[in-house]
């Protein structure tokens, strides 16, 4: 059976919505105190410098106000960080991730089986990491990449095994804890995530993937991803996220740092399907050197509220950024997402394509910033945002910001908002499709420019999720 057929035959709703009993080997108290941070760091047996960074981040977190004054931002008033359990270590024997799914406890193995991860690994991936609660429980990569010096391990292990390189790059120049309140929170309580290192001139042909699963009620997941792509290397990293729905709020606040060296190429794809009680507040950033290329592909389907603006700092001459963003907000969801690009060198290019769909009272917002610094001559940027609205209860906003300090540039921004075309629906109905199928087909066509950038498994997955949303049968 091909994976496409497999995905179609699996009941996607059941795949995300199941809950497992909550057991853990170690669980922190709710809320944030210095003591909690020390316990987390001690449980991980971290070097002192990491503990110091965590404590510094905690101080910054306490000092910074909650963001409340962004125009039209999602309501975060129901998010009480003091009620969130920041750290849960699942009860697995192998710290740092087993190399065989069979070595995991049945319930965790079963979780990832249901999510289709081992299947995808066999068929289409170079390596897989799987995180359950706060820790990576499975990590494996094909041997041929290891032989070429590629590192793909969990972040906690990287702190121990690749200490110097982590110390240099971890929340220093790319995403410092002082960047924003949730980056500071992340810096204090981060756990798990991936470390990816691609040596010079190595092209990792098949994507590597990390999957993040929250199972426990009221927890926070704060995984950290650090990718370093050396000169001339190439990698595609995919992350998937999901959680079952609970009555109280969960918080996901990931941190992603990507270093794209000269002539390197990194693609970072996310399909986010957090449950609708999850606040999803991430900081993702890449620094791109000369002639490097960074591509951010994001599908935001889940969560109660998302605030996510992956950013690229185009630091070297000729660096390129591509953003492809799709957001789907259904009932009770507020998906505030977009892009940030800083053109800090000549001949840099960026393109941002955003598609959003608002339905059943959901809200989508494209919020983006393009900054062209003085001296970044012959740079160009093009931003295109298209939004589709299903009904009158929904909201669709577009808020781009452009700061242009250089005259020898080409800057264009375009946006449209409209309803689903009655004529298109009518046309499809006259071809024998019912109303729902016609609308699904129109939506699938609307987002196709984005799905065609994804590996087939993800494209199919995204379409399945949208179908479910349109049927109103999920969450």
């Amino acid at each position, binding site marked *: 059976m091909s994976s496409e057929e497999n995905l179609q035959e699996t009941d996607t709703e059941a795949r995300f919505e199941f809950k497992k009993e909550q057991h853990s080997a170690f669980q922190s108290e709710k809320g944030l105190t210095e003591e909690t941070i020390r316990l987390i760091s001690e449980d991980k047996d971290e070097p002192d410098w990491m503990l110091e960074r965590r404590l510094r981040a905690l101080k910054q977190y306490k000092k910074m106000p909650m963001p409340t004054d962004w*125009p*039209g931002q999602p309501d975060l008033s129901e998010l009480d960080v003091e009620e969130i359990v920041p750290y849960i270590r699942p009860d697995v024997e192998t710290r740092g991730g087993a190399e065989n799914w069979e070595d995991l406890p049945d319930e965790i193995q079963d979780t990832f089986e249901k999510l289709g991860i081992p299947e995808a690994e066999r068929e289409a991936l170079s390596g897989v990491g799987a995180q359950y609660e706060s820790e990576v429980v499975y990590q494996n990569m094909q041997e041929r990449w290891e032989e070429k010096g590629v590192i793909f391990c969990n972040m906690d292990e990287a702190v121990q095994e690749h200490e110097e390189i982590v110390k240099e790059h971890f929340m220093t120049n790319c995403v410092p804890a002082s960047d924003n309140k949730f980056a500071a929170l992340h810096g204090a309580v981060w756990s798990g995530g991936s470390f990816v290192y691609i040596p010079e001139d190595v092209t990792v042909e098949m994507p590597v993937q990390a999957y993040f699963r929250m199972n426990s009620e009221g927890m926070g997941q704060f995984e950290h991803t650090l990718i370093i792509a050396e000169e001339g290397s190439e990698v595609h990293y995919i992350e998937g996220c999901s959680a079952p729905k609970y009555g109280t709020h969960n918080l996901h606040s990931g941190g992603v740092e990507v270093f794209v060296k000269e002539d390197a190429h990194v693609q970072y794809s996310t399909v986010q399907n957090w449950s609708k009680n999850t606040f999803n507040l991430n900081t993702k950033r890449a620094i791109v050197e000369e002639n490097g290329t960074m591509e951010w592909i994001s599908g935001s389907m889940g969560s109660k509220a998302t605030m996510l603006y992956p950013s690229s700092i185009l630091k070297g001459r000729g660096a390129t950024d591509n953003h492809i963003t799709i957001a789907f907000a259904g009932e009770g969801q507020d998906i505030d997402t977009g892009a940030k690009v800083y053109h800090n060198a000549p001949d840099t290019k960026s393109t941002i394509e955003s598609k959003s769909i608002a339905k059943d009272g959901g809200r989508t917002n494209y919020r983006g*910033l393009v*900054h062209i610094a*003085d001296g970044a*001559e012959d740079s160009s940027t093009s931003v295109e945002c298209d*939004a589709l*609205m*299903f*009904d*009158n*209860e*929904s*909201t*669709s*906003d*577009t*808020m*781009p*910001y*452009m*700061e*242009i*300090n*250089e*005259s*020898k*540039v*080409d*800057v*264009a*921004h*375009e*946006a*449209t*908002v*409209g*309803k*689903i075309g009655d004529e298109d629906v009518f046309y499809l109905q006259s071809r024998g499709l019912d109303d729902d199928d016609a609308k699904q087909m129109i939506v699938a066509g609307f987002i196709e420019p984005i799905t065609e950038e994804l590996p087939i498994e993800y494209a199919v997955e995204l379409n399945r999720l949208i179908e479910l949303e349109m049927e109103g049968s999920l969450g």
Partner: protein
Amino acid sequence: MSGATQFHAGVDVETVERIAEERNEPEWLRAKRLEALEALSDLDYPDVIQTPGRTWTNLADLDFEALVEPFDQTEEKDWVADDQATVVPFHEALNDADLEALVKEHFGSVVDPEENRLTALSTALFTTGTVIYVPSNVDAEDVTIRTTMNGTSLFNYTLVVTDQNASVTILERQDTGADADGSEERYYSGIVEVDAGENAYVQYGSLQDFDQSTYNYTLKRGVTDTYATLNWIEGNLGSRLTKTGVSTLLEGESSETKIVGAFFGHEDQHFDLDSKVWHRNEHTTADLVTRGVIDDEARSVYEGVQDVGENAWDTSSYQRENTLMLSDESEADASPKLIINNHDTEASHSATVGQIDQEDLFYMEGRAIPEQAAKNMLVEGFFVPVLEEVEVDELREDLEERIHERLH
């Protein structure tokens, strides 16, 4: 924001009472002025855009203490109008019972005096203004108002009310007097309220051409009744710093608005321009078009908002903004926004920033046109799409002339 207002001690109850007293104002207006004065310290400066680490226009840093001199408001004003429309100086209007009732009804109804600290300041201290009233079914010819500022401060107020089926074209110009002290910094503040009645047509054009030591704050807003059309032309050439907002509240069914902007900044000028439209009823249409050129160290900030409310079925809303940068030292910031709460909407916006097209330049040089002349022609050509929207010949010609002067 609360605390110090940054205005000097002379901005007080006594001053406001004296302004009202000297002009023999009715009690209701004095009360409004005093309310505005009292609110000053609790109000914020007008909203400005902020991005991480940057504030696009910093109003709070202006030296209002020196700029605001309530008793140094000298100006010359002249009005040209035919006898179809009533065009009278603000305080003269208060002496006429019918007009006073009209002013009382509309004053502060479109722009809340307490919208922000600068509107409140303007309400408390204004000494001059114009009331324009066009009765039902009257087709008024062009109305021209010229305000020449001579003192340190000037607070100006304009009210336009048109009844059913009335139409009027208004051109308001602001400049600085030849005798004004060029080394002194000045502050101009203008509020314009327009109430366009059922099926009325109003075109309101403005050409701001102050000297470059003037700080300029203006807020122009109109509300439309059923089938009304309100078109704005906003031309900005002068001033050291301008913060201006032009907006239409499309309240009546099938009403329309157009906001056309043109600006040309050079040296160290700073223009912060907002165009906003709120669609609040069915079948409303808006078209926002702004074009601007910046040279030297000038900076432009543009914000355009198309806000479609949930009752605004069958809305059409379009926005375009284009900035041409002639110098590397200049900066152009733009933020066109869509806020859409009704799905039965066709809305789009686009914005571009760029330099003179090198191919166009090459083509013209190939036709033996010297480089500078070719550039000037291309800049003048860049403004054509907005100039074409200007129905008042006088305003269009003035704009063309001033753009031409600035290039040569």
